[in-house]
């Protein structure tokens, strides 16, 4: 079942064999080895993730060193981004003990943001998270974080009880509520978290590919095809390439939005794991 490799990272099911460059499909997301004869995991996507992490670390070190009371432009820009995460996400969602989770949230936001923007920038032109293995790992980290925070706060069994059984449910309904809440809190949450990020990036990159690759094919067409004269094909190709800039702009917005939403939902899950019973 080659399609299933979308949801489980199994490259070999899709990437073996030759493919046409148009229409784009699942195979368009196959990795390339960084150099000839490199081991399978040394590919462009892993390299992108590592470069993304390096950019994030370098950025935060750069804006955080030599801080002054009167901030420079560099420090001001860094503090502005930090404040968006600190006040707009962490403090809004988590309340008074947001500080413990702030480093994770800030890292998550900046890492996802940088990797999503890779989809629109030269050298990369590929959003790392359109490969499903990467969002799975982030979702697992978030899963460990919010469950760990809940267990650390109230102990294993009380936490489990609190998360599968909302207060005030009458006994006959327990048989229905407990499996549902268990599914919702421990299965659906991390799965949708990963799938949302992955599928947004995947769908966005696919649309970009349709416009850019299809536009290039049409623009460079040299003979009439499908009953259309060459000039019409070339004109359509040019129009599609111009329109692809609008798609790129939309994708940049989606990238920022998804980074924000992943972080907000992580904070939301942590806050619901920490919440007291009412």
């Amino acid at each position, binding site marked *: *079942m*080659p*399609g*299933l490799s*979308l*949801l489980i990272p199994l490259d070999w099911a899709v990437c073996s064999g030759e493919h046409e460059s148009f229409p784009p*499909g*699942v195979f368009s997301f196959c990795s390339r080895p960084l150099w000839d004869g490199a081991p399978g995991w040394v590919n462009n996507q892993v390299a992108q993730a590592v470069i993304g992490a390096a950019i994030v670390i370098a950025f935060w070190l750069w804006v955080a060193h030599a801080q002054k009371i009167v901030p420079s432009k560099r420090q001001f820009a860094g503090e502005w981004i930090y404040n968006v995460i600190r006040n*707009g996400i962490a403090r*809004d969602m988590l309340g008074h003990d947001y500080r413990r989770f702030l480093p994770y949230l800030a890292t998550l936001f900046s890492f996802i943001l940088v990797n999503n923007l890779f989809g629109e920038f030269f050298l990369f032109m590929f959003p790392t998270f359109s490969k499903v293995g990467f969002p799975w790992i982030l979702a697992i980290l978030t899963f460990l974080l919010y469950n760990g925070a809940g267990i650390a706060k109230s102990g294993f069994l009380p936490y489990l009880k609190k998360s599968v059984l909302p207060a005030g449910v009458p006994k006959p309904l327990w048989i229905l509520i407990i499996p549902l809440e268990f599914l919702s809190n421990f299965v659906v949450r991390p799965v*949708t978290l990963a*799938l*949302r990020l*992955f*599928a*947004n990036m*995947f*769908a966005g990159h696919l649309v970009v590919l349709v416009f850019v690759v299809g536009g290039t094919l049409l623009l460079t067409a040299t003979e009439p095809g499908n009953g259309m004269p060459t000039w019409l094909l070339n004109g359509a190709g040019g129009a599609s390439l111009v329109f692809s800039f609008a798609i790129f702009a939309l994708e940049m917005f989606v990238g920022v*939005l*998804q980074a*924000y*939403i992943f972080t*907000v*939902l992580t904070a*939301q899950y942590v806050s619901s794991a920490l919440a007291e019973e009412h």
Partner: protein
Amino acid sequence: MLPVLEISGSLNMIGYALATLGPGIGVAWIFASVINGTARQPEARGAMLSTAWIGFAVVEALAIIGIALAFALR
């Protein structure tokens, strides 16, 4: 069969097109509510928008899972 009527491709995409209807209405409803709320109380816009984005993400997940499954299930 007339050659004109030959349609090829994946039926999944038609299923996906149907599946976008629900999230489409949902997302429209969320932002319609934000517009309504902003018209009633303009200073609450920021608070409403940040909640709206979360709601948007949750609703949009349906459409997005739809497109993933449209490719995944053959």
